[in-house]
């Protein structure tokens, strides 16, 4: 299944990947092969089968609504490349 260069560029953009023209061509070919592989599933008759997102259908477990503070804010901030005070610092986001 052929994937157009524009489609590859779009998907790369959504994933915030900067790809060269050469990479776009290579990855386009590889993505096509992956889709062809998965396409084998089209041979199955799935009429009347509910979409399955999980192998178990027991229902999700719950937690009770009790607040338990996480004690180590410093550890969270230490994972980030930058901070200011108790906040994470990120590259400036231009809002309207």
């Amino acid at each position: 299944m052929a994937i157009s260069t524009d489609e590859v560029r779009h998907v790369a953009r959504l994933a915030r990947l900067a790809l060269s023209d050469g990479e776009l061509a290579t990855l386009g070919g590889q993505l096509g092969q992956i889709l062809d592989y998965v396409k084998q599933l089209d041979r199955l008759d799935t009429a009347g089968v509910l979409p399955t997102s999980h192998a178990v259908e027991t229902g999700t477990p719950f937690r009770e609504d009790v607040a338990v503070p996480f004690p180590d804010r410093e550890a969270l901030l230490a994972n980030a490349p930058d901070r200011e005070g108790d906040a994470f610092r990120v590259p400036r986001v231009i809002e309207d």
Partner: protein
Amino acid sequence: MDFEAVIGLEVHAQLSTESKIFCACSSKFGATPNANACPVCTGMPGVLPVLNRRVVEFAIRAAVATGCTVQRRSVFARKNYFYPDLPKAYQISQYELPIALGGHLDIEAGGVSKRVGITRIHMEEDAGKLIHGGSSAGSQGSLADLNRCSVPLIEIVSEPDMRTAEEASDYLRRLRDILVYLEVCDGNMEEGSFRCDANVSVRPRGQEKLGTRAELKNMNSFRNVEKAIEHEIRRQVELIEDGGTVVQETRLWDADRNETRSMRGKEEAHDYRYFPDPDLLPLVIADAWIDELRQTIPELPVPKSARFTERYGLTIYDASLLASVRALADFFEGAVAAFGKNPKTTANECIQWKDAILANAVSVETIGQVVEDRETGLISATAGKTLIEQSIATGKAVRVLREELGLTQMSDTGELEAVVAAVIAANPKEVEIYKGGKEGLLSFFVGQVMKETKGKANPKIVSEVCRKLLG
């Protein structure tokens, strides 16, 4: 050409839980940055979200109260996008299979009642907060506070059933009143715990096909929602009349300039690539649980208001005003129980003292006793107002204050007859004119008696006594 607007609303209501939707961080507002954050809500590798039971309870209660059908099986999905207020790079939401479908809300605007469809209700997590430009001068970049990240929300999506800004605003108020009644949301628009986006389009009246819609955001009060929609309808109609076409886009309401502005550039690539979240199993809800929660739904504003008009003889306006706030409605019924002979006066007092009542500054007894004393003629309406004001200021009981301030009216007929007789004796000329048929002069005698008694006489009884003695 005559145009009609088509409006649908998307409401995000923050649920009043103790903890977040998928982790145990506190969901309370106002903590220092990132005090309410943990590895789960900051999207650290290897963590697992676990659903908060109360979030589901609140969503079911909201669904039942708006006539939706709760789905026995619903699925959480990932909505993928990059933005620094969302460290996982996806928001956990519900997409193809939400928790509730197909409800409605009855509204009334411009004297017309209509039913607005509710398409769906789904649960999702909120995003964090960004402070642009940093916290101090010269600071670079944006600062991310993830306290709000993963705070539980329900999104309530209406059908495009509204035709005017007034209808939209009435829908919004009624929806907010219901959620506050259910105690699932505090309904505070300014603080953002009740937010609304509006999809607005216009079409020539009579045309079936919908026009291209614009999505309006950033309206943080009922007034702003109404103004923004009105403005947007006008903008679209003028655009079309001038030969232009409406483009599908998101527009921000600017309350300072009273206009909507296009969010240019932010529209690119809204391709969220939703897929079922592999970390969360489908949510399976037993009928027994829904039934159990159905029992916890209180009497809602509309039926309560109907009961108030029927049972207490209130006007529809007063009844719906009282019924719109649960605490006020409960107070009113408490005050009627404390003194039940004149619910209309009680209703008036409750409406007049609404703010003090909701601030818990006035007791049921205060209102009940003032109404009772007015009813039995012990105090005037003016004295009642003074007594309530003084009671709020001093914390003293109104009946103690009534004696202290000497506000008890003279209502004793015998006592008043003596005063009236004296007034009659002192004004023979007026008596003659009155007896000559000029009955309007009755107010002169009443006025004289009020003057003699320094305003303490009960005017209604004075008037009766005057009429009798002049008879």
